[in-house]
């Protein structure tokens, strides 16, 4: 057992770190550090810098632009991205739609979409949740009816992150209302956001930010060639994606950066033992999560097996820590301060409550572990 990175892994980390030091635009880094709003241009600018370097989609196969890094190198890279305070890479194209296309897409679909995702030409969003279908996603009702070479889509999606920036949306839609199992009536469809009949309506969250939306589909005509995998196999696709999605949810690099910032801004507050102990416990939770995450990675590397259901605990602990950080930050700032940063910190606290709800609520994650890992 050796918890330290090997010399090669350290050299890799240093290479990544050195490159990031000179290539993350300072203005974007500043925005991330101060929890300022990131525009679509900001997000796309950073995406393209990484694409140019060849590092925007490390996990993809090499022929589509992947780096060929192993799981540990990919983890180090992601951690360094978070640690240096670069803007987030929006996952909907890079690490959601693309893996689905790579696994289930036709050659034509791959040729058409993957290079544009890689280069940041298309901005993607995810059409899963509906007003009546949150945790119980398989109850979704948005309907797609085959009409010649097209599907006609009617219905509504909700909580659609950055739909107002998006060029494309990948959707779970119901193609068969009478399937024996309701999961079998679901299909995975790619829809151009410029298609007539699509309306995007902002949903303002309690921090006042416009991040999520409602998306309405009113007789939207979608070419049948935009169906991914077979009709009725959408649930298989979604489940595949779920496993793919969960490995990075710990967001450990970013939390380490925020912890360092919190420590720096709370030097005086740490004279209060009650605050200091809360801070220590949070730091220790993060240490434990990091090692747990490395243990899972090590297991993946050794067995060559995809992550098991127990990686759901990374999402649970990772998001609890992210929330804990925002809570302590709010307690670290002067309660009467109205400067820009202090206001942003309070809003951040509000905003981060979403983390234990999105991407499969933490209760759903517990259901997954209970069923898949513990056999309950």
């Amino acid at each position, binding site marked *: *057992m*050796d*918890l*330290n*990175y*090997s010399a090669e*892994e350290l050299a890799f980390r240093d290479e990544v770190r050195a490159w990031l030091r000179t290539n993350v635009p300072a203005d974007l880094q500043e925005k991330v550090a101060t929890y300022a709003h990131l525009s679509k241009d900001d997000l796309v600018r950073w995406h393209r810098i990484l694409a140019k370097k060849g590092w925007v989609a490390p996990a993809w196969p090499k022929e589509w632009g992947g780096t060929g890094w192993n799981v*540990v190198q990919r983890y180090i890279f992601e951690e360094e991205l978070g640690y240096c305070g670069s803007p987030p890479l929006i996952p909907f194209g890079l690490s959601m739609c693309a893996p689905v296309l790579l696994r289930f897409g036709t050659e034509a679909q791959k040729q058409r979409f993957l290079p544009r995702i890689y280069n940041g030409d298309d901005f993607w969003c995810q059409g899963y949740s509906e007003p009546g279908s949150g945790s119980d996603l398989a109850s979704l009702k948005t309907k797609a009816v085959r009409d010649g070479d097209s599907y006609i889509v009617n219905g509504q999606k909700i909580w659609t992150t950055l739909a107002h920036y998006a060029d494309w949306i990948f959707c779970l839609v119901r193609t068969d209302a009478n399937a024996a199992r309701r999961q079998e009536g679901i299909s995975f469809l790619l829809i151009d956001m410029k298609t007539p009949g699509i309306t995007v309506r902002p949903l303002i969250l309690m921090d006042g930010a416009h991040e999520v939306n409602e998306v309405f589909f009113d007789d939207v005509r979608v070419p049948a060639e935009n169906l991914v995998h077979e009709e009725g196999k959408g649930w298989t696709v979604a489940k595949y994606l779920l496993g793919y999605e969960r490995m990075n949810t710990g967001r450990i690099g970013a939390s380490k950066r925020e912890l360092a910032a919190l420590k720096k801004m709370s030097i005086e507050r*740490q004279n209060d033992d009650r605050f*200091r*102990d809360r801070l*220590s*416990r949070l*730091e*220790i*939770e993060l*240490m*434990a*999560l990091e*090692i*747990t995450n*490395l*243990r899972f990675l*090590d*297991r993946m590397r*050794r067995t060559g097996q995809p992550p098991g259901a*127990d990686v759901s*605990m990374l999402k*649970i*602990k990772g998001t609890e820590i992210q929330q804990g950080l925002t809570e302590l930050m709010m307690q670290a700032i002067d309660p009467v301060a109205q400067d820009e940063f202090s206001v942003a910190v309070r809003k951040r606290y509000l905003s981060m409550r979403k983390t234990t709800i999105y991407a499969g609520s933490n*209760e759903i994650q*517990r*259901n997954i*572990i*209970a069923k898949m*890992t*513990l*056999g*309950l």
Partner: protein
Amino acid sequence: MNFDYSEEQQLLADSVRRFLQDRYGFEQRKAIVAGEGWSPQVWKQFAEMGILGLPLPADVGGFGGGAVDLMAVMEAFGEALVVEPVVPTLMAARLLGKHHRLLSSVAEGRTRLAFAHAEKGARYRPLVNTRYSSGTLNGEKCAVAGAPIADKLVVSARDGERIGLFLIDKAGLRGHSTLDGMLAADVVLTNTPAEPLEGDLSSIEEAIDFAAALGCAEAAGAMKFACDTTLEYLKTRKQFGVPIGTFQALQHRMVDMYISWEQARSMACLACSKIDNNTSAAERARAVSAAKIKIADAARHVSQEAVQLHGGMGMSEELKVSHAFRRLTVLAAEWGDADFHLERFASL
């Protein structure tokens, strides 16, 4: 980076586990506790398997191993709730230095040791009032784990201004059993002849960190048992016509217990690896304190939930889970409770 046990570590862990499964079942353990409180035969087996010599230097018959080498063994001890005082002997042996004449007989299982350090009112701080002068010790040491069956004791004492270490024959013991059924004793020292040893406060802190790290691994093992046995109970215990594990309220609590155990195990890995490999005493101490805090929180969480989810049966002396509860309660506070380590963690 690599979390795998080496082939030797795995082989040892497997043989320890097999031995404990065959010879250290819950009923056998009960008989040991109700009898002498330890088993000489088991001790002999531990020596033969190489556990007692594992962290000792090769030239005294040891294997030159470290805390990581012992980790899998400690996890197995934790699962079986082993009562034989292996850690007290190994930590005291560590304080004897690398060349002491007693080490080979420790490795062979012929000499048992204990470390007499804690004093009344000191809690976990290194406050030492026992005094050494002119070849003898005077003072009182409290709750010395393993002392009743130790042949020799390593004692911390003040020699002028400095705190040093001394070796004595077993003397002046008032034995008792601890909350978790282990053997311990208060030690009254009255002009007790003592042999000065090398070492000072920093060696004491190192040995305590070593014992604490092993205790973390042992606690992780006891938590694994508590989780496994509770899961089994949820699947078999029926109420309202169904296994109680079908209730989501209980499923989520069970999941949280497993998460606590996994997180605790990660911190035990960190603590043991920083005992073997560190660039400074502060780095080692910080890792051990962090682990102790996490293990204290997790031990409390897992043990309390294990009893609660067992219902009345969890309270019963008849079930091993109540013994695991007691062991975890003691391990959580051994060599410093969470409050003590929070203070130390923040100071480093």
